[in-house]
């Protein structure tokens, strides 16, 4: 109890950069917490989070996992008697926490400045295009080697001669390692703030192993989200997430299997999984885009620039992906190359700006937060018993 908490009077101002809303409007009636189907006795939100923020308890906020427990169904905001928009506050707190975990400080800069984020994306985009223009060599279709290759594959477009999977895979892995290192260190930072700095709870090692299963199950199924009243949100979220995960593992681990010039029959898993992924991404992107454009539903009423850029890049990646496939099947050689270059030009800035520093990182933070929260809960329950 003697622990001293530092109060930061500018905390609210700071968090305001990460989202919208007049958060002083909150008069602490508790409606949002009592409305929320996900809130639990040991982790009450959104109201407590708003209180923490209003009181300027920066360290407490940095160590809280509650914002990650919210999947944003918007029910708290629609019934809020003060129009304080607690749902969007939770969303903003997630953005803020992402920047808190990020030791490079880039995350906060991207979140706070729309111009910077767009600029970074644009620069990377044109760098990739330039790299293609400079380094890529268009294979000569008339050369013996290429024509032999094509007849051997039964294909009409030698994309793998244009962009060899081994090379692309290598670049992918470099990208993965670099971004992965940032993400992992950020996750460790989160672990430090949530668990190591919290002296009230001690977690035995075996508990870490025991809780992995439940966390993994929740990650796969998004089971927690399904407890929210509106199931369409869970479905669209699950669609975008599962598509992304499958796509991600194709590209990172199985690129040689995924990127083939040979056109497999439609029954081949490479084809239908690819179609599923493309459909999932495009459907979800269009769904989110229309929602955010119309602003009718509570969760779409406010859109941060990171939301728009995220949807845009993801949509462009999916569209150029399917266009590569279509032009390859229909034998449009140059079109395939263009689309491939564009595909990568959209993919790299997406990975670079979002995976470790912005919206995408919640794919890692949220399941990890749920894991940590379960750990704390079990540990506390054990401590209460003894």
């Amino acid at each position: 109890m003697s622990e001293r908490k530092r109060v930061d009077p500018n905390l609210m101002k700071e968090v305001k950069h990460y989202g919208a809303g007049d958060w002083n409007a909150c008069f602490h009636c508790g409606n949002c917490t009592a409305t929320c189907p996900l809130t639990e006795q040991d982790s009450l939100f959104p109201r407590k989070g708003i209180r923490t923020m209003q009181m300027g308890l920066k360290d407490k906020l940095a160590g809280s996992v509650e914002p990650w427990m919210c999947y944003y169904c918007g029910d708290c905001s629609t019934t809020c008697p003060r129009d304080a928009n607690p749902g969007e506050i939770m969303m903003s707190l997630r953005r803020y926490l992402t920047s808190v975990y990020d030791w490079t400080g880039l995350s906060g800069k991207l979140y706070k400045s729309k111009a910077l984020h767009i600029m970074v994306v644009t620069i990377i985009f044109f760098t990739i295009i330039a790299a293609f223009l400079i380094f890529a060599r268009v294979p000569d279709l008339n050369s013996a080697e290429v024509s032999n290759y094509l007849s051997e594959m039964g294909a009409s477009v030698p994309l793998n001669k244009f962009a060899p999977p081994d090379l692309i895979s290598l670049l992918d892995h470099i990208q993965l390692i670099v971004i992965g290192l940032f993400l992992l260190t950020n996750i460790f930072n989160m672990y430090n703030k949530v668990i190591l700095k919290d002296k009230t709870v001690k977690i035995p090692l075996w508990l870490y192993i025991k809780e992995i299963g439940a966390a993994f199950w929740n990650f796969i199924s998004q089971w927690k989200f399904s407890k929210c009243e509106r199931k369409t949100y869970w479905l669209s979220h699950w669609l975008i997430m599962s598509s992304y995960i499958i796509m991600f593992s194709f590209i990172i681990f199985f690129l040689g299997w995924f990127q083939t010039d040979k056109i497999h029959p439609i029954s081949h898993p490479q084809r239908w999984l690819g179609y599923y992924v493309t459909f999932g991404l495009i459907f979800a992107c269009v769904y989110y885009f229309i929602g955010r454009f119309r602003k009718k539903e509570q969760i779409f009423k406010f859109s941060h620039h990171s939301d728009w850029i995220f949807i845009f890049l993801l949509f462009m990646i999916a569209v150029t992906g399917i266009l590569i496939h279509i032009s390859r099947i229909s034998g449009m050689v140059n079109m395939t190359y263009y689309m491939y270059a564009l595909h990568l030009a959209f993919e790299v800035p997406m990975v670079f700006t979002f995976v470790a520093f912005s919206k995408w990182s919640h794919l890692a933070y949220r399941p990890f937060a749920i894991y940590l929260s379960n750990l704390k809960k079990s540990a506390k329950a054990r401590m209460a018993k003894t």
Partner: protein
Amino acid sequence: MKGNSGEVGIYFLNGENPNAPPIENFSDLISYAEKLPGVKLVKSTANGGELNPNQLNSDIKQNNLKKIVLAGDSPGFYKTLFGKAMAAAGNDPEDVVVASFREHGAITADETDRAKAVLNCAVSNVPFEIAAVPDEVEVNPDTLVIGGGIAGIQASLEIADANKKVYLVERTGTIGGHMAMFDKTFPTLDCAACILTPKMVEVGQHPNIELMSYCEVKGVSGGPGNYKVRILKKARKVNIATCIGCGTCAEKCPGKAPSEFDAGTTMRKAIYIPFPQAVPNKYLVDAESCTYIQSGGKKCGLCMKVCPVPDCINLDEKDEEIEVTVGNIIAATGFKVFDAKRAEQFGYGKFPNVVTSLEFERLVNAAGPTGGFITSRTQDKKGNWVFSAGGDEPKSVALIHCIGSRDENYNKYCSRVCCMYSLKLAHLIKEKIPEADVHEYYIDMRAFGKGYEEFYERIKSEGVHLVRGRTAKVEEANGRLLVRSEDITADKLLEQEVDMVVLAVGLEPREDAGETAKMLDISVSEDGWYVEANSNTGPVDTFTGGIYVTGLCQGPKDIPDTVAQASAAASRVLQSISNGKIKKSIKDLPLSTIEAKVKELSTREGGAS
């Protein structure tokens, strides 16, 4: 003279202050301001510009300002800030003048002319009250009171007791209003009927009061001191003069409808007396539920046959219109309670034992549906959920505050009475079922009146569970009701199972409050309540001469405040009658008249100095 030599600065502060009026033709107002004599600088912060003391200081110095007018700033939030800036520039901080639009009646968007007049007065150093004085006219000594609730009753009695004639128009079949429905008053726990019914009887018997029940005001013409009022006498179908109130007609009547007086918890006949103590204590016929009228005179007509008084009931009677002439009009038109069905999350209309406070008020009343026993609703033989004296006593009851009040989704304002009446209901439950658990969920406990805080303490000591935290939803679980809230002081999520939920519904303006306001030519606030001329110094006046507002139609208030306000309105009426003269409406005063007066006054003053 100060500030008349090109040294006046005007700051519009509409954007800074949400209480300022939303003047429609803002640019027109600004160009008017620029043309006023002596004005050198006009600045508007309507677009949310921040007031910066350094900037103000340099404004003052650059333009050599000797006087500043704060336009639209009511009641002068920024006067201190500007005063400091003036002092820093070496001027007199007292030379900051507030031109309060709101205070002088520029309340709605179309009152640009009034705003101009107020501005003109402030720039020329002439008090608005002196520049804008309407002429006086003779006053008709008769008064019209619209609405027969406690406000209308009190106002009528005050005037009638001063030997002046009052027409009291009441829309329903009896006077008494909402207060007649209440069981007890807070904080004294007096029986509401015991206070009200003697007053009602007095109204009914008073030689100076012409009680017009079941009537509606349809039109008002003329002006202050001489209003011609068209009143619709709705066909009561029963002759008030001859009806002896025996009840034979109602006994035989087959038509039924939910009782308005019992807030729909019981049924009444189509021919009925609203409640046993009604004034006038005579029957009336509700056309909607009358078989004879609904069938176009082909069926039924039993009441006419059984009535022992010849020609007393005439179901074919038609509405008629009459006209009266009065000098003053008091609007005491009251309120309606919030429709709890609008806030779906509380399950009203879905779960039979989620009831409104008004229904509960009838339930605990000894003349109510169960004779005063608190019971849960049970299904009768026909499957309807009804209160019956034989029903089960609820073992636990939840009272939920702020239903439809203090809520941006419905009404932003506080309804002022719900905290106290909920505490009262909690007490009544504890009194009648001492072993019952009573849970009360509130946002803030507003026990503001005389003796109210003490009452709150008393209820706390009676073992009522008071939870600070607004209930978010009511659900059904295990055949009982589940109330979900967060106890914000204990940081706990509460899921309380109860047998009955009482929703403390807020108060709203009547549906036709706007039409009535139009008829009377008075302003309506954003929330729909009638606007008084000045909340501090003219709480019952309006900007229309000879028209006063009192009671709930002016805004939510409790019974003591309503009665006090009704007496205040009566005193304003009596003042004009006693003088024999009344001022015309300030709103009919043209801008040019005020401008001329300002010019006259300021030149005279200027000449003297």
